[in-house]
């Protein structure tokens, strides 16, 4: 599909290798945040909103 090295406007643009590397880095960066889990701030918020709902319903 793509040659490994593409010359364009005087700059070397590396193809498949670097695309794969970028994809890996992107997912690693993303997963790093996912691993942090749910900060208390959000768990608390959801719990409070739920409690308020229960109170209104009751």
């Amino acid at each position: 599909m793509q040659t490994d090295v593409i010359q364009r406007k005087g700059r070397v643009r590396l193809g498949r290798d670097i695309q794969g590397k970028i994809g890996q880095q992107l997912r690693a960066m993303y997963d790093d945040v996912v691993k942090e889990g749910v900060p208390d701030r959000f768990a608390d918020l959801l719990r409070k909103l739920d409690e308020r709902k229960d109170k209104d319903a009751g």
Partner: protein
Amino acid sequence: MAEARTVRDEILAAVPSLRAFAISLSGHVDQADDLVQETLYRALAHIDSFQPGTNMPAWLFTILRNLFRSDYRKRRREIEDADGKYAESLKSHPEQEGKVEFEELRAALQKLPSDQREALILVGASGFSYEEAAKICGCAVGTIKSRVNRARARLAELLSIEDAAEFGPDHKTRAVLSTGARR
């Protein structure tokens, strides 16, 4: 009552990924978390419009994405020193400072137009299909595909300039040899 618990659990389960999406989109952790909070408020306020059994993460991502876009348009009017503000956000989260390896990638991501950035993250990191990403962004599948391709090409350009050195002289030699005419 039991139904409400399940919905809350579903929403909670999506928070880590929502945060990752928000942080990758905005580049600023604090701003991203505020965005996630607003998303949760909005989701719960409009929970009746969510059809149980359908894709909850996609629904939440759509809310967050729309909030980001309306917020983003407001912020574009402000002159933003991307480096300065990002450095500030790092200070408030010292654990991020260690992740120098992603610094270049984050900076490069911020250089992409936001519609390319969101498409790339949704498909390349969040794990949505092109069809799901198209629904989240409210556009055609073909549009998402071209945005993703352009984002990838642009990132490759932005990052390969620094990376070229890592690949060593062999690649450069091959490059020169492969174009003959340039010599």
